């Protein structure tokens, strides 16, 4: 497994501004999700709300390594990816509120963020269903002679489903530029990996398709960044797909409705204390002399303001116009019925 903790990380050679931006994005995701939980409790957000707290280093590390033109499709715990792509927090929060100013106009909700402007082709909520779509995006990239890699982010639970295996086979068979990035947070909803998967290491599943694979410490943002960078280089140099397994942990329940009967409080506390990706990165940046605590605190305060403004924006935004409810069923001109 790749980890940069305890060793000198090439990622630390990144310009300070980039390192601080990665830190800022992780904090932004954390605060955004905390605010979303609050707003959910207040009844401003409804339906399913899956929080990304604890997994921030994966989104930020991976997306920071991507080129602007790369494609991205993800699973439904998707707020973090949108924020890591640099999308404004306001429209993201407004989407959770079901407002017209939301990222997708209030039509998608928490699980279906998307931004064509960033080649973020959506959060998908049928587990593993988006993986064949990533294969198609990779196929299009190669067909059109582009240098884009299609990045698919999914959980450990997805690796037990048929679409995962069909997608892995197709991508490997056709040597397509697809990065399969598995976030192994140890639980598929409330079922632990050992009750769901014949192998505990998701990366081993890539062997069946002769696809290179690697495990990485998903709580270490620089390790994720470096591993993703290398994996993308592999894909971009026409060597076919790559499989990356990021070991991570979800600090909150599966969704807001989760009483968490399947894991102990001690386990969760242990991760929160020892493996919080933001604390780890913060300490690292200070220890390495890249920054000082006051500078990071300033970032934290800025993020608090951004998130507070995002909540205000969402709250004050109008609901979708009822007249638009039948818009967009079809892209073409013939009438929708």
């Amino acid at each position, binding site marked *: 497994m790749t980890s940069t903790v305890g060793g000198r990380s090439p990622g630390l050679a990144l310009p300070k501004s980039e390192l601080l931006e990665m830190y800022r994005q992780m904090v932004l995701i954390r605060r955004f999700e905390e605010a979303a939980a609050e707003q959910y409790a207040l009844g401003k957000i409804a339906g399913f709300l899956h929080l990304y707290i604890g997994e921030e280093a994966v989104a930020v590390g991976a997306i920071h390594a991507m080129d602007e033109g790369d494609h991205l499709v993800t699973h439904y715990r998707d707020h973090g990816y949108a924020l890591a792509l640099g999308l404004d927090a306001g429209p993201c929060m407004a989407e959770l509120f079901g407002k017209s100013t939301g990222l997708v106009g209030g039509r998608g909700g928490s699980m279906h963020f*998307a931004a064509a402007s960033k080649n973020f082709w959506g959060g*998908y909520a049928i587990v593993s269903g988006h993986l*064949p*779509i990533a294969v*198609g995006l990779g196929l*299009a990239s190669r067909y*059109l002679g582009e240098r884009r890699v299609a990045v698919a982010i999914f959980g450990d639970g997805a690796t037990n489903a048929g679409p995962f295996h069909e997608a892995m086979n*197709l991508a490997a068979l056709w040597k397509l530029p697809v990065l399969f990035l598995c976030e192994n947070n140890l639980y598929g909803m409330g079922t632990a990996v050992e009750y769901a998967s014949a192998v505990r290491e998701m990366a081993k599943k890539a062997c069946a398709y002769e696809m290179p694979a690697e495990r990485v410490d998903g709580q270490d943002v620089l390790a994720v960044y470096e591993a993703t960078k290398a994996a993308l280089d592999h894909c971009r140099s026409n060597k076919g797909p790559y499989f990356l397994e990021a070991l991570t942990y979800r600090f909150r329940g599966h969704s807001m409705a989760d009483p968490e009967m399947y894991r102990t409080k001690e386990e969760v506390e242990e991760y929160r204390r020892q493996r919080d990706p933001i604390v780890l990165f913060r300490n690292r940046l200070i220890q390495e002399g890249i920054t000082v605590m006051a500078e990071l605190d300033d970032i934290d305060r800025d993020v608090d303001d951004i998130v507070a403004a995002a909540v205000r924006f969402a709250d004050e935004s109008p609901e979708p116009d009822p007249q638009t409810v039948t818009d967009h069923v079809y*892209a073409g001109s013939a009438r929708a019925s």
Partner: protein
Amino acid sequence: MAREITYRDALREALREEMYRDERVFLMGEDIGHYGGSYAVTRGFLQEFGPERVRDTPIAELGIVGAGIGAAIGGLRPVVEIMTINFSLLAIDQIVNHAAKLHYMFNGQFSAPVVIRTAAGFGQLGATHSQTFEHWYAHVPGLRVVMPAVPKDAKGFLKSAIRGNDPVIFIEHSLIYRNRGEVPDDEDFLLPLEGAEVRREGTDVTLVSWSRGYYLALGAAEELAREGIECEVIDLRVLRPLDLDTVVRSVQKTNRLVVVEEGWRTLAMGAEIAAAVQEQAFDYLDAPVARVGSLEVPMPYARNLERLVVPNKDRVVEAVRQVLYRRQSVSVS
């Protein structure tokens, strides 16, 4: 100018013309390349267009439909072939949860213009290879579902489907690939993916069908004409969006309706059409709407049993007599 060609050749022409017209158009499916296509629609295409554009796939319907959706998002114009509509059930999640929904769910930012070609049909193929599910797809907002009966429609619809921006379920039928019909010569001959067509005018009863069922309806109409019963025959052609106006207009004239479908009647197209007609033309109906479909059993293999299950011309004739309250044929000569 027009020529008479087969339904299969109409499809072949549509695919070839669109592939020459637009390099983004490519084909993907099981046995479409080296084998030449299960129903020979793509025979010779691999040699003509090469393996990048005529892509043999593993037997993995969900994967290839999903890849088609992704390729469409990524800027291509994929035509995915699912060998038969029976196998499309493996891909139904991709079709229903993704292809049909992306444009709406993501607020019109992008769509998945993928064409999914597949074939209905039967012929002593047993329970799992003899079904038809067009109404399952026609149920879903966001999809366009076409099921052409004649070569002209097959060509015009397929070309429009490939050029359009919506996902299209394009359903052929294994028993009509050799049917012949006139097709315009124009390489830009396109048909909008909507609208039923009155193919035979009549005054006594309206027969509605599509795909191969249209030929059963037409055969019944010709037989009944010999005894003085004039059937109006409507080829529905497109199952979503459904053109009920044409059906209702006809029922307002004939006051009687028989729907002919190949699958099970329960919760199928005939049920939907009957419901819509009673909503829109209740006062015009002089008899309950009749539906001719399969017996509600899994398809048996044995020839005699299969013949009992699938609808045939005689059962259509019988249904027409029923809505006309005529028990026996009346000799007019």
